[in-house]
């Protein structure tokens, strides 16, 4: 509606609000930046966990408690055993990522795999009775 200078305009507040609060198009570079950031988010999370996986797997506190008799029975050597657990757990990392729904789920699956592999190493190395 054309308004004349000095003449009071019809007071349709809702129409004026609609005009004043028109939707704002986001800048194009924001859309590109967002897409790029969201696209790499999963990879970033995976990389962080890969680094965390390695340090977590090398930490014996994350291993299941071994039978104290293992040493006497000739159980696995700490360094070699840890290396074997790391190697075996890392082999499954792609499958874990594919199965995980989120970062927490990935962490839980990694810990479960570390525990399982550590147990296997101890069982394999322990002399058969």
């Amino acid at each position: 509606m054309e308004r004349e200078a000095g003449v009071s305009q019809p007071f349709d507040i809702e129409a004026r609000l609609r005009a004043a609060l028109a939707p704002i198009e986001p800048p194009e570079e924001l859309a590109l930046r967002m897409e790029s950031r969201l696209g790499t988010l999963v990879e970033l999370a995976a990389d962080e966990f890969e680094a965390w996986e390695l340090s977590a797997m090398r930490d014996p506190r994350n291993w299941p408690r071994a039978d104290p008799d293992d040493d006497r029975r000739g159980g696995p050597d700490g360094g070699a055993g840890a290396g074997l657990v790391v190697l075996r757990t890392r082999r499954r990392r792609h499958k874990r990522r594919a199965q995980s729904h989120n970062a927490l789920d990935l962490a839980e699956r990694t810990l479960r795999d570390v525990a399982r592999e550590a147990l296997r190493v101890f069982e394999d190395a322990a002399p058969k009775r």
Partner: protein
Amino acid sequence: MATDAERAAGEGAAQKRRLDEDFSKLYKAHLRDVYSYSYYRVGNHHDAEDLTEQTFLQAYRHFERAQRESQGRPLRPWLIRIAHNLAANYYRDRSRRPQTAIDDAGPLAATHTTESLVQDRDDLKRILECVQQLPDDRREALIMRFALGMDNREIARALGRTDGATKVLLHRAIRQLEELVKKAEAGGA
């Protein structure tokens, strides 16, 4: 033949892919909504971009749960609620509200003569300044209704209120704004 573990891995990967695709659709459908809301809340493009980015990053982190709990309802109110909470933090961190109502008046929808363009710009500026004077909840309800075109139910979900309370909130916001605009026009005439 695939083992149980391989089948589970395949299902997990497919589920994750679907989730990412759904989020991508949500992002594309509502980028403008989140940006518009952010812009009218913070009053400048720079902070609006920042707020929009933070909103989608946070949404991505909680998307799976939100999708599960939404039971098929639209997720726009949830997204706007994230932006609303982040904007509240923005004000709390900076201990201020926007110094000016808005960078510049928003785009004008129709073609205008030079004279009417100036009048329209003044009018929009006055309206936006009055919107900024409203209490936070009334201002946000108006932004959701008029900038984003959200209905009462969506606004209610975004603000965590009942439908009835939202209807009253919008009614009071419009009445208060009307008074403010009338006063501003009487003072400026």
